[in-house]
């Protein structure tokens, strides 16, 4: 194995172990939250709501909940680990090593994307206890899963480098990420909104992620899944390039 691969795998492994070894912090919260979502929104409320886009409400919200869990966990993993490493300075163990900047970013992002994918899968499994979950377009589901977790893991890198305090991360999560998700078509169909609001909603990138994953599970989408996938993949590449450039410049890392 080459020196580069060994270095990459060492950092990747460390980042994965960090979340695997504290399941109460990483897997238990989304488990409980999603059991509550499916019970309250899916079962209790869902029974009083008509079908949306031709599917029962509980099935309609499932892809959105998967997206919500996957991206917030991917984002949290990179943003928290990088910020925490800066805060306690142990990120210097990585920074003073011969890993290339691209390798550092790659390992942080992949570990976070894996966490996002595990949580997303966990949520789909919870959903399967409440309703029959099928996967109509598995390739699309995998493609969207990879792209959105990688995108939010890469965005988390920027956040982790930018934050000066733990409050900054909480603020990003509460005031930016969460509203985008809630207005991103997780709980309602775009068609139910007035035309003007629909147009504004199309500026929310979350719409494309939720619909893409919904297309994977149910085979229905309110926007073109191929265009969504292309735009999201392009965005991911751009954010990854920004991550590497920030590491190279030492933004938030070096004086």
């Amino acid at each position, binding site marked *: 194995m080459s020196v580069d691969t060994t270095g990459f795998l060492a950092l990747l492994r460390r980042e994965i*172990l960090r979340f695997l070894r504290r399941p109460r912090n990483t897997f238990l919260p989304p488990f409980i939250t999603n059991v509550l979502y499916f019970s309250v929104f899916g079962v209790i409320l869902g029974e009083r709501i008509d079908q949306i886009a031709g599917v029962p409400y509980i099935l309609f919200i499932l892809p959105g909940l998967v997206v919500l869990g996957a991206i917030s966990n991917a984002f949290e993993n990179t943003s928290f680990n990088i910020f925490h490493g800066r805060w306690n300075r142990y990120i210097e*163990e990585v920074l003073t090593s011969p890993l290339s900047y691209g390798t550092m970013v790659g390992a942080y992002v992949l570990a976070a994307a894996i966490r996002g994918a595990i949580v997303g899968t966990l949520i789909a499994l919870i959903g399967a206890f409440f309703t029959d979950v099928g996967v109509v377009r598995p390739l699309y589901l995998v493609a969207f899963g990879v792209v959105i977790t990688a995108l939010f893991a890469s965005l988390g890198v920027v956040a982790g480098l930018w934050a000066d305090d733990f409050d900054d991360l909480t603020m990003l999560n509460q005031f930016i990420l969460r509203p985008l998700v809630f207005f991103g078509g997780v709980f309602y169909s775009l068609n139910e909104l007035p035309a003007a609001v629909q147009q504004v909603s199309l500026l929310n990138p979350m719409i494309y992620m939720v619909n893409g994953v919904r297309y994977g599970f149910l085979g229905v989408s309110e926007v073109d899944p191929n265009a969504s996938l292309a735009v999201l993949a392009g965005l991911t590449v751009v954010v990854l390039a920004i991550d590497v450039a920030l590491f190279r410049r030492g933004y938030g890392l070096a*004086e």
Partner: protein
Amino acid sequence: MEPAIEIRDLRKSYGDVQALDGVDLTVPRGSFFGLLGPNGAGKTTFINVLVGLVRKSGGEARVFGHDVEDDYREARDSIGLAPQEFNVDRFFPISEVLEHKAGYHGIPRERAAERAEEVLKRVGIYDKRDTRFDWLSGGMKRRFMLARALITEPDLLILDEPTAGVDVQLRHELWDTIVDLNQRGTTILLTTHYIEEAERLCDEVAILDSGRVLDVASPEELMDRGTDDVVIQLRDEPTAVPDFTAHDDRIESVDLDGTRLVVTARQGGLVAPDVVSLLDEGGHEIVDLEIQRTSLEEVFVEMTRADEDGRATPEVASR
């Protein structure tokens, strides 16, 4: 062969503050090199430029011929750093922290585990291998910092205040370990507040103050610039003593207090025999003689104080 460290006109500024103000320095391969300076002299900034934690504002810095920015991977691979501040991953047990660090340097997992065992034994904390860093005592933390610097078998070991806050016994143990490494060919760069440490260990020291190198010399050469006291106890109180200063311009002053004669001179050890023979010729009987060598610490304080005075003058004049 390329020197271990080669620095030309290195600069680092933070706004108006010049942390490094045109540093030139060469650290030969295999040497035990000391970097001395008061707090805020720029020692840690200097080290951090080499490992990539500080981006230089100007000048050149090479480690074994590798530019620290253009060839950062090669430069960093050759350095083992034990910083002054504890910057350790506190989530994992210390043996795993070492294995991770080895991994980043491309050492395969099995070999990394062996290396971790070796270095933990070497610094004497192998029985704490499953403990997290936070649960180590202060002395063990210092030992661990050295272990982490050694895990990658570096050609250049940089120790930033390695014995800060450790007891005498541990200090000597750490000294023994690094002297041994140096004898096996590892280049050592040491910064320290304990001047005695530099005096005892280093082949060469650079005195750094306010971001500039004031001097580079061996501790002996530096000490020769200070004055020693040759203290002589005479049997009888003399009525007069020979004019020593006329015989040797290294002698700076002579002080007689009853039967106690103190001759203050540069290179006191070389001056003492002449003083003794002059006294002998004059018929004075000597009962005791002691040479009080100046310490590197005194020379250091003198140099950095002189530098401060030198810098203070134009500022005052400009007001």
